[in-house]
């Protein structure tokens, strides 16, 4: 089975460690990902805010290229890319007029039957069946799995079973030997694309998320979205100012957490690229008994 891969812009830039840790985990399990040739940006939040046709055309181009490459399934690890690509697929599948119009804009034919996998969908389908033999460490810590908006809403494209209390990432963390906690902010919004234009709002919303995780004893927060990661990690100085307290819980990508349990070195997983130090996470780990 060929598995297609759409990294998206963040994973080539500010969230490179998400890309690297995903590849490290896949490689260890002997799974190859095939990048969609000449993929382009999905348009993220900017396109749907400003132009509906563009918001459909940009992801549609990538879907068409995946089809041309003969890929039946693609992994999209960024939550925003997942949301835009899945929404586009949903709209062109249900609206034939929109499909024809978009095909005209991109000058490519579309059948839109490529299957789209989130990172936890991919882990569950391809990594879980083979991972047990590779797990050598127990993360041994309380982890707050943070899903944010884009995996859980809207329901038409939700990648999780229970939209108010998703468990898919929690299952991955349990596999890695962490204790996923029950908390209130699993699917609250971090402020997303307002990170630069309204940093104050992001500090407030992300601050509430960090505070609840801390109040419930979380030792790490685990995410599967570059935007959430940036807001919870890189915006920590603004968050601290807003909360008027110092909360130093590190924020990990889900593939970094799983990678650590597989004995992949922290630097190879890009843990050194974060703002909030991650040594505590590494220090909590214990070797599995043989």
């Amino acid at each position, binding site marked *: 089975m060929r598995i297609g891969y759409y990294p998206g812009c*963040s994973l080539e830039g500010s969230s490179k460690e998400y890309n690297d840790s995903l590849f490290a985990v896949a490689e260890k399990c002997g799974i190859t990902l095939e990048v969609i040739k000449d993929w382009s940006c999905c*348009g993220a939040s900017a396109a*749907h*805010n400003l132009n509906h046709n563009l918001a459909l055309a*940009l992801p549609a*181009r990538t879907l068409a290229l995946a089809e041309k490459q003969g890929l039946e399934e693609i992994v999209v690890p960024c939550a925003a890319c997942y949301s835009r690509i899945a929404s586009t697929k949903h709209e062109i599948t249900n609206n034939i007029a929109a499909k024809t119009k978009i095909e005209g*804009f991109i000058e490519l034919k579309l059948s839109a039957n490529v299957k789209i996998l989130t990172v936890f969908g991919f882990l569950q389908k391809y990594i879980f069946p083979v991972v047990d033999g590779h797990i050598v460490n127990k993360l041994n810590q309380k982890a707050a799995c943070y899903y944010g908006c884009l995996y859980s809403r809207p329901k038409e494209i939700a990648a999780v079973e229970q939209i108010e209390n998703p468990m898919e990432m929690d299952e991955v963390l349990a596999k890695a030997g962490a204790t996923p906690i029950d908390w209130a902010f699993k699917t609250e919004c971090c402020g997303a694309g307002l990170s630069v234009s309204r940093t104050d709002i992001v500090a407030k919303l992300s601050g509430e998320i960090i505070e609840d995780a801390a109040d419930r004893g979380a030792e790490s927060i685990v995410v599967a979205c570059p935007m959430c990661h940036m807001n919870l990690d890189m915006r920590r100085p603004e968050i601290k100012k807003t909360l008027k307290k110092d909360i130093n819980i590190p924020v990990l990508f889900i593939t970094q957490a799983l990678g650590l349990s597989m004995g992949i070195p922290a630097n190879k997983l890009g843990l050194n690229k974060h*703002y909030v130090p991650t040594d505590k996470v590494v220090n909590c780990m214990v070797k599995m008994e043989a």
Partner: protein
Amino acid sequence: MHESIHHHADTLKSHVEDATGVILSHCYQCGKCTAGCPLNEEMDLMPNQILRILQAEMPGYEDKILSSLSIWLCLACDTCYSRCPQEVLLSKVMDYLRQESIRQNKVNPKAKDILKFHRAFLNSVKMNGKLHEVGLTIDYKLRSLNLMQDVMLAPSMAAKGKLSIFPHQVQNTKEIAKIFKKITDSEGEKQ
């Protein structure tokens, strides 16, 4: 478009319904959208008020909505939609209202930076086919004149290998620019 839309008057309300397929009268003002909205404290019009004003078409209502800050603060997180007993897809209405607010030149002054950021983002995609974060940041700073914002992040991001000075591009950037142009032309809209 939608069978259940009977009136086709040239009003904002009918345009919203035609463009989005959302039937505004479905909202019975329970207020769950506003209760769950993460941005409600920042908004000048609450989400349920936006729906109510559209439904009632009070005099001057179009300007009130199109020049509100709320439509630009909406993050399209879809918490409202997921909790709406009537399944009113408010985020789709918000997308339409933002676009209409630009077309009619009624963007709230306090939302100018938000719009500038979105524009800088799309400009980077139009030029490269992919988002170039460094290019986006510089473009946004020039547009918004927030020149000093986040400058302290640049050295640490560079040290962490999170910044690429040169953009990643698609093979043929003209192909992407052409998609932008075709869409703009088809809408007969000035950029």
